[in-house]
């Protein structure tokens, strides 16, 4: 269970929050004007990277506010939180935070505990 720094309340346990999936997926302005494929991509398709992920969280058992966070999915470290409407931080900012605990590759699975020599 990790700690999430709610931009409105401060640091709280993860159990107070709910995850809302990928951030910055805007609802199409005029849904009737786009085709089935474009619409279904908005409804169903989300990125699922190993590494840096921009996602939405809501402080369900707290202020009930939605906000955005940048999380490294391979380490579960939340690297930044920011309010809705604020510009997303550049991915370059997180270049050096990619490494997972055992130094496993950024892509693919791995669960090493022993340092490879």
């Amino acid at each position, binding site marked *: *269970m*990790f*700690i999430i720094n709610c931009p409105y309340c401060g640091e709280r*346990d993860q159990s107070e929050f709910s995850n*809302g999936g990928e951030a910055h997926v*805007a*609802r*199409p302005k*005029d*849904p*009737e004007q*786009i085709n*089935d494929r474009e*619409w*279904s991509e*908005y*409804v*169903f398709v989300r990125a699922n990277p190993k590494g840096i992920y921009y996602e*939405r969280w*809501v402080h*369900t058992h707290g202020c*009930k*506010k*939605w906000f955005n966070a940048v999380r490294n999915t391979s380490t*579960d470290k939340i690297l930044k939180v920011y309010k*809705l*409407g604020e510009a997303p931080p550049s991915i370059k900012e997180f270049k050096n935070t990619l490494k997972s*605990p*055992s*130094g496993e590759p950024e892509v693919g699975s791995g*669960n*090493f*505990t*022993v*340092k490879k*020599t």
Partner: protein
Amino acid sequence: MSDNKIYFKFDGKRYGGNEGDTIASALLRNNIKFVGRSFKYHRPRGIYTCGIEEPNALVQIINEHNEPNVRATVKKIYEGMVVKSQNRWPSLKRDFGSINNLLSPIFSAGFYYKTFMGPKGFWKKVYEPLIRRTAGLGKPPKEFRSKSIHIHHNVDVLIVGGGLSGLLAAKKLAGTDHDVLLIDRDDCLGGILKNTKKIKSIDNQRTNTWVEKTEWLIKNSKNIKILKNTTVTTYNFDNHLVAFEDKSVGKPPDNIKPELVLHKIRTKHTILANGHIERFISFRNNDLPGVMLAASFEKYIHKYGVVPDQNPIIFTNNSSTFSLLKSLVDLGHKPRAYVDVRDQKKIEKETLELLTKYNIPLYAKSEIEGCDGKNGVQKVSIRIKKNEIIKIKTSMLCVSGGFNPDIHLFTQSKGLIKWDDSLLTFKPDKSYQNTITLGSVSGNFSYEKLIGEINKKLSFLQGVNHLESTLDINGPKKFQIKELWETKHEKKSFWSKSFIDLQNDVTTKDLKQAILEGFNRIEHLKRFTTNSMGTDQGKISSINALGIVSKILKKNVSEVGTTIYRPPYTPVSFSAIAGRSTYEFYDPERKTPLHTWHVNNNAVFEDVGQWKRPWYFKKHTNETMHEAVQRESKQLRETAGILDGSTLGKIEIKGRDALTFINLMYTNSFTKLKPMSARYALMLGEDGMVKDDGIVCKINDQHFIATTTTGGAANVLAHMEEYAQTEWPDMNVYMNSITEQFATFNISGPKSRVIMSRVFNDIDFSNDKFPFMTFQNFNYLDTQIRILRASFTGELGYEIYIPPKYALRLWQRIFFYSRDLDLVPYGTETMHLLRAEKGYIIVGQDTDGTVTPLDLNLNWMIGKKKKDFIGKRSLTRSDIVRENRKQLVGLIPLDKTYGIEEGQHVIEKENLSTPIKKPVEMLGHVTSSYFSPTLKHSVAMALIRGGKRKIGSQLYVSTSDLNTIPVEVVETSFIDPKNERMLL
């Protein structure tokens, strides 16, 4: 230690022990070494260690709800405790299951996977019950109520382990601004200072004195809290650790106080000072009672004042056994022999001096070949030269195969470990979280370097004290070890086995066989052989297994790698995890303001979410549910009925843009709806599927009240909040739950207008003044009520919203005024029946998240002129407009005497072959079915493929006894399709 004896029972016999004794130390005090039978082979087993790492001495505490698998080496005795050995029948000495040992050639690695393959049905009926009877450890405990509690901590520094390193670290932090928690799993601090003779004195004080003084200093520093009898079991992300505290150490279970406390600790820095665990060496019959780890033997001497045996044989591959030797000779005892794997030149001079002085035979460059005896060690075979074995009589053998830093918690924290070639073990390499390891857990086995290590590693903390201490060390200053995992066997018989995992009965032969069969990856090998998969997680043996495997594979241990240590570090009782969240405290119960009335009127309750709702009301004690529901339903359609609908979700929506917002949230259009009117509304997900339904009341364009289903209330509010905040942040709209601010009554039936007119005699309930789907606010008593004319039963109906405080008074008044009108209170089951007769859906029963409004024939609810609402675009997707989607239809049995079962399949074929050989094509399933007392036959709703086009045709519904009944597909409205009764 006091001399007041404490008496307890072990396998029916009474024994005395001292205060502070564990079951194991008390048994050893009484010269009992044989305490249990092993897991698979039922071999006699004794006490192997003196702590948490114990693989063998697991017992069952009969007087503590039959608590099984309790480590005898940890559990303290108390007066009247009743202990039983495990895994034996009928008795420990004569055990029926030990025949498994003779059959052991067939019980090798992978035995279960390979053997119990067929014939069909045998696993469930024959093999599993048989295996469950003979294998496994203790028996499950009897039902009892947990009294455990949970406590949360938020600290700056957590110190795990109150041994030498932990105490020194605490001393360094004493009196500073850091908020510190010090946890030790024992009932006293001190660790090795209390358990061994390795350190003579600290700062020229006797070790016990130093521990007492330091503890006093820590306690008086006010910034450090000490938790004893507490074991850290889990190290999670963000320095979140879980520990459990045994509150009933050395005491019988208390009826009131919690027996276990689960501590959830969030810390900024974790100092791991949890020490090391001694490991064994595999040799022939290394599991016999009487074989014990050397450091554990020494702990029994110093901590418990028990000398398990006065003349044991010591077997070692390292320098640490000096301390045991010294402890024994200081007490005037003489070990029978000292067997060291190392060359005499390599053995430390301190050890050699002691051996010479006390004339103890030394066998250098020798190893234990094995030991023999019935139910315990009697003879030990020592290989003194390649082909020469001598035998010595003894009843105990102390083994030391080196030490493993206790890295379980460190690896749980995702820290990296690395192999150390001089210590022959894994030690921490790189922390992943804010984790600091001190002392032997960090791989520092040298006491001389300890003070320097602590000063250096903790210097980053602000304002810490500088430590200066002098440690006077007994014996060899440097730890030396020679690699030895397993000695060479001589004898071969069924009985002779060399174990690698004592708890799971895994032998070194099993490891070899597994590798031969291709399981040469350590994680595969572990699962195939079950090595280190016992509750002890192979604390004394898993590294040995790696050593043996690396030799077979001709690789370095670091290349072989290690399996991952997983939480919990030691087994945690479910009662500690559950804490107070059991029985009625498991989930909050929500009760309506009329709950007591319902109870007094014989309501049977149903759980809806967290709510307790009346299911039906029993008229007399013998009335069945079916009878009650039929009676309630019939009477409502004849006179009137009243339902407590207070659990319905109610959400108030306000703001300048409330109308725009509501138009987007629901499929219906609210623009032209007149103020003080209401509409049955559907809420969809963005995928076009029905999410919830309810009645939306429009007070004006800036103010709405929406009702939701009882179970969906929280989700609907969250759904609205999400869109208001994330998609349309510029909209001026606010919403809030008012579910609990209003009690709700639904009165319906042909007599309801009369009843309402009598209760509220100043209100005109005529059709003109109070039309269907309108609402009005009235003053009533000294409060305000809202009355809405709506119906979920198909009858003329009214909903009353009233603050909960006045609910019971009004409810009783309604009954008073209708005492000659046969007003019947009804529950949820009757509500479901009545709405099904009308073909009204229940979201979650007739829908399942794959059903669109089109599938439900609710096209009329879609505001087609609206430019957008959530889910609108999805309704024109090719898959949604597909004709053969599953659609909601009504079903009526052709033979009216048959009943249709909910959940049954709807099929085209009349006859099902028995047994069913080919899959039967399923058109859909029955979502709701009730026996209608008005129509006097069963009515059902079903979701079936291409249902709309099938109306008028004949299909079949399966039954639970594999028959079918013919049904006619009809429209869903069974009663009053023109709504004449409702608009009365």
